């Protein structure tokens, strides 16, 4: 009897300890998530409280919405850049694990962009990309080449965003790769060298499998980060030119919070859920495929 009372007290203490995060999660995440799900199936007048359930109308509208599809297409292009970004991270990490003088300085140098505010960095890159006075076009013209409309050409604008994204995102992944590379068992390399494996063979058959858990983690977080990236796209070009850098998150924001689309909250929630679903599918596909290429016990 006494023991049971002590157990209950223990449980109570346990519940009290976990209560703050649970209540916080309920208030600021779960309830808004459920409310947004309800909104996505309705036309809700916030002022009068009238709710008109419309079923999948909002979702059907999104599926027929050319701009929403364009924004999804744009983000797919940006996702293509994720693989390039990971390759660059790994490449830089490989260089910075070499035993050379000043390697700590270079590691810090590559990590700095990750520490900077994305707003500040984007404003700097706006000038880097400026057609008339940007440093990139200055370089091109000094080499006798034509200027590039980094931010004004619809075919180039998204590539410009990817380049800036890579530059900004290298640091975090690079640090993780350096840690992963340092943990790669030395004996594998020694055995491979004895067997006569060249550098490429060692890289593809030892290094890549050894850092595959790190790659998996970076891939998942970068996919989520890329689809939900907002500030850079808003500041750099606000989705232009001609919607070529419009992303789903930016379009959702414009729909819900600007006069451009008449503050259409309920439609924005339907698009939010579809975008969420898009992320879930991508991440699930990555998880499923990971069984083939991620090696936890190399």
């Amino acid at each position, binding site marked *: 009897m006494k023991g049971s009372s002590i157990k209950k007290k223990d449980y109570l203490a346990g519940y009290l300890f976990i209560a703050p995060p649970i209540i916080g999660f309920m208030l600021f995440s779960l309830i808004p998530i459920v409310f947004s799900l309800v909104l996505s*199936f309705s036309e809700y007048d916030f002022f009068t409280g009238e709710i008109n359930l419309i079923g999948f*109308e909002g979702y059907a509208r999104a599926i027929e919405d050319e701009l929403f599809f364009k924004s999804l297409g744009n983000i797919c292009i940006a996702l293509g850049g994720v693989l390039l970004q990971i390759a660059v991270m790994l490449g830089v990490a490989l260089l910075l694990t070499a035993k050379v003088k000043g390697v700590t300085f270079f590691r810090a140098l590559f990590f700095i962009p990750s520490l900077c505010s994305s707003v500040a960095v984007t404003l700097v890159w706006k000038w880097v990309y400026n057609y008339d006075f940007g440093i990139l*076009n200055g370089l091109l013209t000094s080499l006798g080449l034509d200027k590039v409309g980094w931010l004004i050409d619809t075919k180039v604008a998204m590539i410009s965003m990817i380049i800036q994204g890579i530059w900004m995102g290298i640091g975090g992944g690079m640090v993780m790769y350096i840690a992963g590379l340092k943990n790669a068992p030395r004996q594998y390399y020694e055995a491979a060298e004895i067997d006569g494996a060249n550098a490429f063979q060692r890289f593809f058959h030892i290094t890549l499998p050894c850092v595959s858990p790190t790659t998996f983690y970076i891939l998942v977080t970068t996919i989520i980060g890329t689809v939900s990236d907002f500030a850079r796209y808003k500041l750099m070009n606000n989705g232009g030119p001609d919607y070529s850098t419009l992303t789903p998150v930016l379009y959702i924001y414009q729909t*819900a919070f600007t*006069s451009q689309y008449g503050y259409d909250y309920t439609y924005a929630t339907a698009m939010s859920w579809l975008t969420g679903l898009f992320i879930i599918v991508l991440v699930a596909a990555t998880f499923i495929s990971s069984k083939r290429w991620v090696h936890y016990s190399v």
Partner: protein
Amino acid sequence: MKKSIKFLSILCSLVMLFSVAACSTNNGDSTGTGGSGSGFKYKGLNIMDNLGSTTGTVSFHVGGGQVELQLWDKLIAGFEKQNPGIKVEKVTINDMDVLYTQLLSGTAPDVIQMESPDFGSWAKAGALQSVQPLVERDNFDTSDYWPQLIKMYSFDTQAGVRGGGDLFALPKDMGVNGIFVNRKLVNAAKERGDLTEEEYKLVTDQVNPMTYEQYLNVAKKLTILDPNNSEYNIYGTNRVYWESYVWSAGDDILTEDYQLNTESEVLKEVFEYSKAMVTEGSEDYCAPYTPASSASSQDEMSMFMTDRIAMYWSGRWLVPNYDAANMDYYCIPMPVVVKEDGTKGESVGWFYNIVYGVSRNCKNGEMAWKLIQYLTSLEGYRIMNELNYNVPGRMSLITEEAFANPQTNGSVLDEASANVFFNMAKTARINNAARLTSSNWIETFESKLSLYFTGEIASYEALMTSVSKQVNAAIKKSDPQLFVN
């Protein structure tokens, strides 16, 4: 795995539940019906039911930087001195999206400030309370305010369209545009001999506007381009406001029945004129190409402030920025079109401003109305003018020394330049982005127009073909009431 299946089942059930509920409750009439047969049902509140007490506390939405915030304090102190029984609670909000979220949740301040494009959708949604009943009760005289402002901040609650009907808001200012000229660059061009005496007279004439042809010629003369080193480039102008050209010619981008004016020869003329200005290699190349967006206008402003653009089309509200940078500038009116019969059109630009309105959740209508009256009184505008920010909302003030000569307030803007903006205010029309309930139609148009300027859309005809359906659909979607007979 089993848990995931269970979760998915619950989710699917929820979705099914909503779908079934939708079938039973959706009558397909989401907007309701109005008495006018417009299909619009106004859901706003009557301020006479929310007058509340004549004493107590009224909340007031303010925004801006440190200097502006200090001015709000001064205005509030002035109001409280005049109305000893009323206290003003200052609520600082700098983002319109935050303000709208507060409106939706019923927690917005009593008196709010909103920008031109937001007014239409907010009034239509019932987020504001009309001050018209109080204007009528108090015989409040609105004749001293710029008439365009009174018209554009009125909303017809029967028809569901802006630009007439009940007054909902009074102006904080009259935000008009003009051409800012970098005196250093113009004088240097004259000294180099690039500008003739005649051209110099044209670009320094603050009363008589140039024609668009003369403007282009002067802009070209002010342009210095080094193909091998763009670091030293100076552009004669930024891209002209095509609306000004079209309105000066007596035409418009929309037809009278709110369709894109695809037949307009003037539109074709101005887009070709503008394209030639921004196209490298063109004989008329004299302006940097930047797409029409707020982000790009900041780029242009930086170029003007660092002596890279000689004549800069921009808003009167940017004067404090140029003053802070100690720029030597003056202003000239926007050019005019010479019509086929040889007569000149008027110099015309657009306005974009901020207005004071009463939020839907306000229960202090009486005090809110008093505060708005004070903010838009002669005294209110005089205090606000310390910022040198804009043309005042009342016409009678423009002859007062502090308004007529901003240099008395420490600005670089001289008397003649200030007068340029007063004249521009007389003819100004509402910005296209604020003309209808939503700005999507013009954003869509500008988006495609940018492709025409960069050459991705080859011809004017192709531009109009590619965009007219989308623009017309966007107008119909945001303002279906305009199409009711």
